[in-house]
């Protein structure tokens, strides 16, 4: 019988800097059952999108084909393969917000942003996207600006939100939670259960951008 020589696989090209970071993230989750979505979230949280060069690394770590990984990335609306604009404005277009003028608000948003829905302004400053329900259905129309939800959004309020986001988009939003004030002094609440006290000066800060 004729033997067919098996070609050795070409050596893998060395990782780029980004790929090294992706590999670290992927390895951190690889042992969990069903690790792919957690990995993609971790990559997108870190880089703002899932770059195409991340796909082969993730595929290799999980022993999947690149097609399988790409299929998952492209299936889910949440994952983006291109970075979003500096301000990511997501406008709810579902029924409850439609009943409060969401379609009209979207048209105004296009004028304010200078780009269409599903698009990023050529200067990269802002992206507009429809989103289907933020769970703020009793206070529509609702939008999400860089991951923070806002309800009862009028055109003027939308303008204000966009302006504010353009200025301070990297500043994480933090929630002031369970704080105590003695006259003119912030101090930790006495008697609070240990787990509820944040190490930082007794003020528990919760919320804001995902790391």
């Amino acid at each position, binding site marked *: 019988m004729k033997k067919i020589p098996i070609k050795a696989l070409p050596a893998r090209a060395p990782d780029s800097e980004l790929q090294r970071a992706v590999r670290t993230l992927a390895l951190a989750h690889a042992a969990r*059952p*069903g*690790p*792919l*979505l*957690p990995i*993609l*979230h971790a990559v997108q949280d870190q880089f703002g999108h899932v770059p195409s060069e991340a796909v082969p690394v993730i595929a290799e770590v*999980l022993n999947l084909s690149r097609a*399988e990984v790409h299929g*998952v990335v492209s*299936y*889910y*609306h*949440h*994952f983006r393969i291109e970075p979003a604009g500096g301000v990511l404005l997501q406008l*709810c277009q*579902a*029924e*409850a*917000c*439609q*009943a*409060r003028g969401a379609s009209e608000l979207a048209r105004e948003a296009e004028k304010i942003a200078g780009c269409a829905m599903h698009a990023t302004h050529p200067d990269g400053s802002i992206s507009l996207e429809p*989103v*289907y*329900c*933020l*769970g*703020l*259905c*009793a*206070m*529509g129309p*609702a939008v*999400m600006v860089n*991951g*923070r*939800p*806002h*309800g*009862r959004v009028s055109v003027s309020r939308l303008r204000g939100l966009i302006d504010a986001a353009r200025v301070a988009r990297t500043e994480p939003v933090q*929630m*002031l*939670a*369970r*704080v*105590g*004030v*003695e*006259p*003119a*002094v*912030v101090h930790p*609440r006495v008697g609070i*259960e240990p*787990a*509820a006290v944040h190490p930082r000066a007794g003020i528990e800060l*919760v*919320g804001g951008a995902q790391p």
Partner: protein
Amino acid sequence: MSGSPATQTVRVFIPRDSAARAVGADELAQAVLTEATRLSVSVEIVRNGSRGLFWLEPLLEVQTPEGRVGFGPVGAEELPGLVASGALDPERAASITHPLALGRVDELPYLRQQQRLTFARMGLTDPLSLSDYEAHGGWLGLRQAASLSGEAIVQQVLDSGLRGRGGAAFPAGIKWKTVRATAGPQKYVVCNADEGDSGTFSDRMTMEGDPYLLIEGMAIAALAVSATQGYVYVRSEYPDAIETLTEAIARARAAGWIGESVAGTDARFQLEVRKAAGSYVCGEETAMLESIEGKRGIVRAKPPLPAIAGLFGCPTVINNVITFASVPVILARGPEFYRDFGVGRSTGTLPFQLAGNIRYGGLVERAFGVTLRELVFDIGGGTASGRPVKAIQVGGPLGAYVPQSRWDVPLAYEAYAAMGATVGHGGIVVHDDTADLSKLARYAMAFCAIESCGKCTPCRVGSTRGVEVIDRIVNAPDGQARTQQVDLLRDLCDTMVHGSLCAMGGMTPFPVLSALDHYPQDFGLAATREHDAIHQSKQGVGQRAAMTPSQET
């Protein structure tokens, strides 16, 4: 008690619910802090869950000797004036006259008209405080379950008549019984928190405002079926819910309610949050399993049922957030107590969500059997715009538009199914008379086209064809052309209803056909008298349209 504000700490409640934060609750908390500091008033701000009275958010509550007194909606800029009139003085807060003063919050008619079983604690407590949870009746159900056999727990859930609250209304006890009876190397409890239906927020409120309730319900399920691992699949659109629930799970584990030992038993139950990625169809249970497994959210063919071969091929209990959240009260107070609420086979209560164009939007938990008219008009106060209500969509994007003639039908699974509608997840979206139902029908098809997983043809292709046919109906040059297209649309809907693999394609025709049947004038068809609209046959619409000259919309 001394009346001097400087000598006593005033307890103030400002919700941390993302709906309250979305309209300025954080800014209000900051303003309270600033103002209290300026006036040397000692305050303690508790970030509670929302009471579910969303038109009053941000709602500021002040603890007084008579109970909690509310003010709302309070913009941060209005706070100094409110404080100047005495809002932060517990002795005076209840009696001051201010346009934002609401008096005692638990006396508000909106809350007094409700039957809060599942949402009994909502808005009262700090959602992450284990001591608050326990002080308000938390863990009673799990404690009870820990003293029972798995079989006895399942029996209690069966006896309560609890049915799946996500929309399909399958009896929870039967599902649990199946999982319990199925052997497997590993069993799972999975919570479907992919609340994608427009007009619904009760899952979100539970995860943000009373997360231990969901954890307790899932732990009871785990004891009942001997599952050791649980997942909560939460939408990526709910960042606050993910964060709060994750923290709550860590604290519940640290306190010994779940983890290596569930409430002091030998049973082990680990729980983990899984973040979804913006796919509506992943709210379908088998698509959700695929997603947790790390694949595209493609619907699986059934059988096998997930109860037999679910997550990673193992027996899996899958329920919605509100289903699990309804379980603790059943265990704590007995299945009879729960079963005595509701009508017929729709037992218990449902947290209805009043949304869309409604004056008093929010969460209203009532026993099954309440009517839309009571919810939308008596409690909800009609439209926010002040215009007449035209249509009410019940049960999310796959639910029917219910016309005026049907607003007195009791909200119960059977009664709604009988008229081609669905109670679904209890979302109620109100539209005023400016709504164009042909546009909403078109949107239903377009949404299905965007969100279809693509596995079955009726849904994947039918939805796109549906958009085109509705466009042709609305733009038809004459009555005859319109009639032809209406026939086509009905035929297409028939194919989708009977040929789709899951509810995505199978129920998208509900809003479409209900819009066509009850609001034909919006499609350029002859207006029908509403009360016979429900009995319209396929030919009915066609004949009427044929007799009318074209009426372009």
